[in-house]
């Protein structure tokens, strides 16, 4: 009843997810000696970057009571576009990065327009932009897969945002970048107007409108944030992996949304934290990376992911019943 339990609830969920992470790490480490190496730790992080960045963005839309299904194909679309500019148009990497982000913001704004202004159901609207970005990505890149400059080339400097090597030791600096962004966005969600109104829209859109808030603007903005972070995720993806193939990317969004939900973000709006979403993403990535290590064929990871998702939501359902 008191504010303590309020706080307790949110932190409780996060604490629980941290607990799950610890248990998973312990389990994998016991079952597989190769798992408990520095490099595995780094590769878990490597995979978590782009999913976590998408999760940060999509959490904003989830909190408004919507969803953004276009981030996965969007990510590939932006990444293809940027890569195409570098490889085929010889633009400097900085320009490509900016182009990536600009395109992502535009697609985010398009989602916002469809959902907040044209009042289309978020699921459907973003499903359509998912299809559109999937096609657009191939068209913008001329239908070809592209490879961004490698870390050995001077133009590959952007890869050092996420990972660089000192004396043969890989420093996963990306985790710092992502954590800073997580904390920043968590702060924005909790302590700025943008965040406040995002929660308010998810809580009761009509009442928020009656309070004189420019609901449309903030609603659109949530989708722009989602798009923008898909753009950042595109950069992380391009920086971590070698070649970007058109036609891929569908399904990435589900890892991000799944992570957010495991981390306690409610699919019906109003509830959730960015830190929670980030921790949830770590669970998903750990599963992807860890399960092959303990000798389970890669396909088991999909079954486990499905079960973990249901389990996570079931906790909420059972809690609510009590």
């Amino acid at each position: 009843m008191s504010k303590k339990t309020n706080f307790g609830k949110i932190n409780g969920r996060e604490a629980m997810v941290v607990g799950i992470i610890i248990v998973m790490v312990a389990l994998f480490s016991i079952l597989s000696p190769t798992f408990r190496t520095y490099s595995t730790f780094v590769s878990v992080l490597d995979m978590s970057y782009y999913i976590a960045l998408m999760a940060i963005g999509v959490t904003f839309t989830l909190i408004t009571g919507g969803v953004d299904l276009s981030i996965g194909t969007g990510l590939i679309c932006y990444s293809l576009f940027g890569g195409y500019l570098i490889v085929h148009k010889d633009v400097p990497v900085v320009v490509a990065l900016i182009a990536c982000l600009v395109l992502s913001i535009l697609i985010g704004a398009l989602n916002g327009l469809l959902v907040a202004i044209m009042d289309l159901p978020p699921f459907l609207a973003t499903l359509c932009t998912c299809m559109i970005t999937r096609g657009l990505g191939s068209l913008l890149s001329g239908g070809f897969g592209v490879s961004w400059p490698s870390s050995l080339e001077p133009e590959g400097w952007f890869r050092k945002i996420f990972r660089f090597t000192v004396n043969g030791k890989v420093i996963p600096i990306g985790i710092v970048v992502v954590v800073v962004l997580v904390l920043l966005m968590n702060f924005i969600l909790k302590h700025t107007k943008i965040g406040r109104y995002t929660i308010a829209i998810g809580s009761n859109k009509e009442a928020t409108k009656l309070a004189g808030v420019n609901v449309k603007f903030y609603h659109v903005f949530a989708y722009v944030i989602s798009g923008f972070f898909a753009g950042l995720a595109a950069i992380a993806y391009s920086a971590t992996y070698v070649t970007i193939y058109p036609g891929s990317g569908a399904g990435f969004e589900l890892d991000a949304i799944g992570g957010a939900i495991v981390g306690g973000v409610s699919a019906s709006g109003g509830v959730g934290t960015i830190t929670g979403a980030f921790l949830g993403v770590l669970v998903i990535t750990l599963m992807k990376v860890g399960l092959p290590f303990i000798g389970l064929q890669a396909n088991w990871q999909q079954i486990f992911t499905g079960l973990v998702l249901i389990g996570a939501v079931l906790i909420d359902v059972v809690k609510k019943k009590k």
Partner: protein
Amino acid sequence: ETKEETPATTPDTKAPAASTEEAAAPAETAGGDYHFEVIVKSFQSTYWQAAVKGIETACGELGVTANANGPANESDIADQVQMLNDAIQKAPDGIGLAACDTNSVLDSLTAALNAGIPVVCFDTGVSDAPEGSVVATVATDNKAAGACAATNMYPVIKDVVAAATADKPVRIGEVNQDATALNIQERGLGFIDEMIKLCTADGKKVAVVGNEFYVNNCSDKGDEKTAEVIIEVGVPAQTTVDLAATEANKIMSKADTIAIFGSNQTTAEGVITANETLNKLATDPAEGIIGAGFDAGTPQKAAINNGKLIGSVTQSPLMMGYKTIYTLVDVCNGKTVEDIPMDGYWYNADNMEDEDIAPNLYD
């Protein structure tokens, strides 16, 4: 290595049906304003872009036209079948086909046969094709190409393998994109079987572990407990680069791993990606893991130049496309044609610039 520009005109042993079909078709002049439809597996990777380039070159040389098309994804079987059907509808003088799936195109091949359109398969053969529909296949012998990687890798790791004991076995990894596509299967098994052969020849006991398909279909899966050399096969849940990298990472993280082979562009890049974190790849087995790849592409070429991979096997997509058109024109001109086996070429930092290698190393 078969490097003839024109196929051998050996006595007519194959595809008699096709030649009679052709004879029945309205006679065209040899210079040929022929039009062909070419269907590739997809345009996703640069591999196929190279193939299309070869097709265009051949068309330019012969003065024929060809229209290349392909689904968005190598797994879009349904789309490719439709494309093939559409191509047949257009009644071209011939069809070049790289089938995503060899079984799903059979009905369409029958339709092509009935319509009197000769089909040349390239990259991937269709073994069960109805008699006479496929007049020739221009494809890499994937088994040989996979074995080629093993043959070239083995000398480098020979000493380490020799030193291996049942108590302290060594591990050779292989990452395959999937266990479904015929060419990947053959390639993967080709590498495994050759490696087993080479190791057993040196008196080593070999075991194959990992993905069930490869374990069950290799020449001898052995026993992991007594083996001195363990070949571990990883297959990602889906063919995305991140999951391919995870599989590579899993294998490369193991302390006893001495070598790893990525059996196509995606998985070879997976190995390279995993190495970004692990930093274990080296050209000397004493210093780290020996890596080998398959196909080309900028990242692989760079990795070879930088001493991350000792080399890679390239097919010649360019030549395959090129020869497909030549074969089709021959068919149209009533010549008898034969299957053209294409070789896999081992390339490394030394021979990358060679005249007969460089054109096949697409970006």
